């Protein structure tokens, strides 16, 4: 594609295409974080507030009664930070605070932390009622993908 075009309409069209391309490139959908769950969780759709409830340990069971097992990466992991801000709309320190309070006061349990994304996928696949997040869905099989609705 070149800027040296004669027709004015073509110039406008070119600019629009380029803008659309840039928007697409930086759009959150391109590198969106996907929420995955074990196949025993019969939920295909969650709202942001429901997801927040699950990760802040205020909802401990799926609709079918299966206990929810929450998996996460370390709080400084870039994927975890992105997940908190984009999907939960919480700052990672807010979640840390909730989880530390539950864990060290005895009033509850915190999510299970795993070392990396592939371990997280493996854990979600093999744990009944598990929920987790991944950046790239292409390689992930045998899990339930949950759509997040605002």
């Amino acid at each position, binding site marked *: 594609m070149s800027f040296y075009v004669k027709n004015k309409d073509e110039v406008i069209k070119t600019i629009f295409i380029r803008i659309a391309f840039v928007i697409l490139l930086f759009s959150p959908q391109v590198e969106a974080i996907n929420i995955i769950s074990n196949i025993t969780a019969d939920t295909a759709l969650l709202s942001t507030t429901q997801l927040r409830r699950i990760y802040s340990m205020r*909802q401990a*069971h799926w609709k079918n009664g299966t206990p929810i097992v929450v998996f996460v990466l*370390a709080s400084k992991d870039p994927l975890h930070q992105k997940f908190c801000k984009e999907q939960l709309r919480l700052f990672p320190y807010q979640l840390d605070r909730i989880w530390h309070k539950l864990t*060290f006061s*005895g*009033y509850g349990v915190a999510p299970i932390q795993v070392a990396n994304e592939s371990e997280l996928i493996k854990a979600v696949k093999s744990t009944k009622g598990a929920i987790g997040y991944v950046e790239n869905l292409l390689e992930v099989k045998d899990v339930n993908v949950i759509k997040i609705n605002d």
Partner: protein
Amino acid sequence: MLMSLKLMIRSSKLFFYFVSSVCSVYFAFNANAAKIPDESLQVHGFVAQGVIDANNSNFINADESVSLELTEIGLNASYQLNDDFRIAGQVVYLNGGNRYHAGPRLDYLLLEWDAFHNESWQASFYFGRVKNNHWLYSSTRDIPFARPSIIIPQVVYFDGFRDIAVGGDGAAVKLSYSDDSLGEIDFNFSRGKSTISNKQADVILGDLSTGEFGHDLDLQASVYWRPANSQWRFGFSALDSTFNYDSGNLDNYSDGSFTFQFYTANALYEGEFWEFTGELFQERFITKDFYFSTFKRDEVGQGYYLQARYKLQKDLSIMARHERFYNNKEDKNGSKLEQNTGGLVPAYFGFHNDTVIGLSYDFSSDFRVNAEYHWMQGAARLSPIVQPDPVANGSKNWQVWAIQLMYWF
């Protein structure tokens, strides 16, 4: 069950028993932890060591020297027995110099019953030794990375009362509600009492007492509300507790009783860079007999702290806080206290103020260093509270600095 729990709890051997049991159970269940985590069992812990110095006060030690008495170690385990029941326990070792007695403690040991749940509601009951979950930092006051500073606001979280305020043997209820329009609401209720050892009693009463100090009853309730999609959270709490004192042989004190009522209101704002916290309270402290028979004192004290935190960089934050407290709202500067004691107790024993500045740096997700400096004023939050020591604390103004390294898993 509670009686047998209490008997067990009195033995310090339980600390070592608990640690070894947790380790063996953890390794037995989680031998392949790296492959597939066992979601029923969770084991967590922390280690923190610091250096601290208090000048012009015996807050840490009598000779006011730089001290390593800033050690906090904890280990906990939680095991999900089935869908409805869970057991959890934590042991801690604390050494804070004169702030509280040094040694191991069974922090909590409880059975949780998940009585009811649906998408919006969760109702849980806790039986055994439960922690105080009513004030902003009451359940995490000993957890170095889950509290706002190394020395937490003494106006609310007075270290001299730590062992009786941290929790008790009894039961607690937690009722949580969340929905998209009201937000998140938590209601907590607890009833129990603390077992007060002689060492703990010495921190409160001083070493001139030879009798037994007991905790009769402790009732607490609190409610917290975070409006939907809000970065604010608000809370209220109320506490009513009674204590008794049975004098011993050749005791300087008589039999007596104490009533302590404590009401707090708090607000918390959590932003990306800024965080604001405020907690204000009113307390009523009634003393009957004790100093001599027919003695009676009924005082209402008030206080607050305001705290701000700012994230300077990704892993570095700065904190500033101001605290204020006076024992008697009719005598805010303590002049009546000095007058009534014939000058024996200086006026500055009637109040406690603190201005703090602190830094916190995260080396990683589980390793942090905190550093802070306190400009303190007044001696109303120095132990022992019933036996002021103007010789050791001869100055109205005193200072504390501390640096603490902490690791958790």
